[in-house]
């Protein structure tokens, strides 16, 4: 009886031991799986760090390649500096007026072609009146203080556009004259990085002016362009024109002076509080 009980107890303990060993084994297994997971996570983190590096490198690359906008940035930085240091009002309205006036007066001289005192006086008076009435129209959404630069850059932009138009003309002529007529019309749809309406319109009209492409519609920064064939579409996606327009209007990939102005106001408030 006693022996039977003992044997039974031993059996039981053995079984329990066995169970415990099994459980320990399972725990060990799961621990190993966790270890693996940790390893993997570590790898992921590493790769993320590599990616980060790559992005940094890419950014640096972009900065160095898109040199056209750096001048803009430099200028804006200076301006923001002055805004934050002196927290002064810019004389934007007056400058707009002066630029509008000089544009209109040049237009007047082109129309008139008379250089006697009387007609020049009339021209000055008319230009002042019209500029006074409409300077807020001509440069409505343009950021503060940039009108001079914009006009200069726009004038530089025009020869390039003409060159593009001539090139596209020749291309279309070749297409139309070639016996197979390899045209493949389709509608492109792309989102632009430009932000203000005047730059949208400049881009849209430049696209329309160039033969083989026509802007059909703009909806919230999304362009619908009808193009004549595939190569044209690739040209557009490459986005040289877009970059140049952005350069004119000092947009994309830079800080807004307008924002700086807004922040400057808050900044002044804060300084009062502190």
């Amino acid at each position, binding site marked *: 009886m006693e022996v039977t009980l003992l044997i039974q107890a031993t059996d039981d303990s053995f079984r329990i031991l066995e169970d415990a060993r099994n459980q320990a084994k399972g725990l060990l297994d799961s621990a190993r799986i966790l270890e693996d997971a940790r390893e993997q996570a570590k790898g992921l983190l590493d790769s993320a760090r590599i990616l980060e590096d790559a992005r940094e490198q890419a950014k640096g690359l972009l900065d160095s390649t898109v040199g056209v906008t750096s001048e803009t940035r430099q200028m804006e930085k200076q301006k923001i500096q002055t805004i934050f240091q002196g927290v002064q009002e810019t004389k934007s309205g007056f400058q707009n007026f002066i630029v509008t006036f000089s544009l*209109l007066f040049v237009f007047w001289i082109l129309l008139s072609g008379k250089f006697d005192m009387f007609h020049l006086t009339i021209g000055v008076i008319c230009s002042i009146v019209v500029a006074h009435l*409409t300077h807020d*129209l001509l440069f409505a959404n343009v950021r503060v203080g940039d009108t001079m630069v914009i006009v200069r850059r726009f004038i530089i932009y025009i020869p390039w556009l003409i060159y593009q138009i001539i090139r596209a003309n020749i291309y279309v002529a070749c297409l139309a004259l070639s016996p197979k007529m390899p045209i493949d019309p389709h509608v492109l749809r792309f989102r632009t990085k430009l932000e203000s*309406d005047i730059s*949208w319109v400049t881009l849209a*009209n430049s696209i329309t002016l160039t033969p083989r492409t026509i802007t059909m519609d703009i909806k919230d920064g999304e362009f619908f362009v009808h193009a004549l064939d595939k190569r044209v579409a690739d040209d557009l996606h490459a986005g040289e024109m877009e970059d140049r327009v952005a350069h004119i209007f000092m947009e994309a990939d830079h800080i807004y002076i307008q924002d700086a102005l807004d922040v400057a106001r808050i900044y002044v408030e804060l300084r009062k509080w502190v």
Partner: protein
Amino acid sequence: MIRSSEDIIIRTVSRVLVPFIQLFALYVIAHGHYSPGGGFQGGVILGASLVLLLITYGPKETRRHISEKSVTVFSSLGVLIYSGIGVICLLLLGNYLDYGKLSGILHVAPAEARALGILGIEIGVGFTVMAIMFSIFFDISSGGKPPEDEKE
């Protein structure tokens, strides 16, 4: 009928064009002596630029540039300039609209005085025509409804 247009291209292009249209109109008025044109044509072009503003930006925005009251004032002012020049000639003991008599106060030769008189009345005509063309279009397009309803 008139509310501001949604199309971004039309809005922007008209915004940029309006100053140049207006300057061209003034050029047409001022150079009526040497080239085709004169007060009437220039006034119509000025009126057309205002109509362009009206159909792209709607009545509310346009009223900021030229209000109904100033339209009435301008239309009266133009004809008053015209007939006023005539009355000045009367006061200078000439006949009505005899600009040659203006040489007495302008200190120029009679022929030059006539040219200046012509310029004066062209300006008057331009004012009136601008204001009236705009006002006719405004009335017709708002079509008998008070302007409040049109303001969306």
